[in-house]
């Protein structure tokens, strides 16, 4: 199995416990674990957009009151139910974002004509980014982009599509991916109802 296939398969397997998690705390822990996994896969983590997403989605859901009323802003009631539904939804979306980052660690190869076009696109993309750094005068912007496009389109019939070789996964890769997937299922199990029967204190968590 190739590394990209292994990465996508493990990510796809992780989606199941994320999707079926009923506990807010469980979803939060899953999201944190996914962020850590995505960062370990070489992706950047920017906290501010995630915090804003969490706050904005939670606040937007307060417009539909449900459950225990916490307080009122003017005549508008802020309820626990709507806040937790919003937070759960936002955490789910954040989890999906980072599981996607995790799955895309190695660029998957798409077969056929579309795949060839995408390879060509990335070839030119590499050319544009490389040439952009070598352009000394980046201002004014229009002549700079014009130069960039002219340079990139030169000798376009002699394209040698260079792609990173998609290496085969070794035993270490397989074991680490099994651990990642297992981690998600363990968190799901710990915060599920049947575990709360064994450890009643879990019932107290949202």
């Amino acid at each position, binding site marked *: 199995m190739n590394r990209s296939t292994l990465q996508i398969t493990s990510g796809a397997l992780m989606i199941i416990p994320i999707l079926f998690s009923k506990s807010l705390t469980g979803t939060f822990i899953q999201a944190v674990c996914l962020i850590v996994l995505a960062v370990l896969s070489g992706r950047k983590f920017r906290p501010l*957009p995630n915090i804003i997403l969490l706050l*904005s989605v939670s606040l*937007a859901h307060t*417009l539909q009151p449900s459950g225990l009323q916490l307080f009122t802003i003017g005549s508008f009631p802020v309820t626990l139910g709507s806040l937790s539904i919003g937070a759960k939804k936002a955490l789910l979306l954040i989890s999906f974002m980072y599981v996607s980052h995790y799955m895309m660690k190695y660029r998957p190869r798409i077969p056929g004509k*579309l795949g060839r076009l995408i390879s060509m696109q990335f070839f030119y*993309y590499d050319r544009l980014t490389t040439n952009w750094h070598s352009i000394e005068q980046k201002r004014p912007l229009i002549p700079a982009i014009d130069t960039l496009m002219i340079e990139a*389109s030169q000798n376009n019939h002699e394209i040698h599509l260079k792609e990173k070789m998609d290496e085969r996964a070794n035993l270490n890769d397989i074991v680490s991916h099994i651990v990642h997937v297992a981690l998600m299922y363990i968190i799901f199990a710990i915060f599920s109802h049947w575990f709360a029967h064994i450890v009643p204190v879990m019932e107290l968590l949202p």
Partner: protein
Amino acid sequence: MKQQTKSHTEARLELVALLAACALFLSTIEYMIPKPVPFMRLGLANLALIISLGILSDKEYFILLLLKVIGQALITGSLFSYVILFSLAGSLSSALVMLIVYKVFKEKVSCVGISIAGALFSTLAQLTVSRFILFGEGTYVIAPPFLLSGLVSAVILGVFAQMFIERSRWYQTVSGAQA
């Protein structure tokens, strides 16, 4: 003759790939600009679509659109996330509207008009998606700032595209070769 046709087709595909790469390059620049919410877009990558209206056929234009959406998702890692839905809805609706506006009004409309029409429909499509998967009924609260920011960035983008078309040597060469 057959060889010539093939090399012409190949050259056209390379032009589409170059424009798609340009869209990707611009979306990378956009990705680096901090945004208050992750799905909010300035639409810099739409510049490639606006420019391509005068140089690509309808089929090539939609191939460019497809490459733009997939390429952006691959670069940002959002291929399997909810962000792809926003990207698809926004790109598809704006591309379709920009093409219709361009075909109907031809020289009577500038890049600014095309860009505004595209941005308006892109924002509306994204608000519809957010109504169902993000904010629910609360979407109407975020609609005005979204429409306003979309309008402002569309005007800037349209002016930039118009200036690029008028001044670019690359564009003159490509459009001249097509004519």
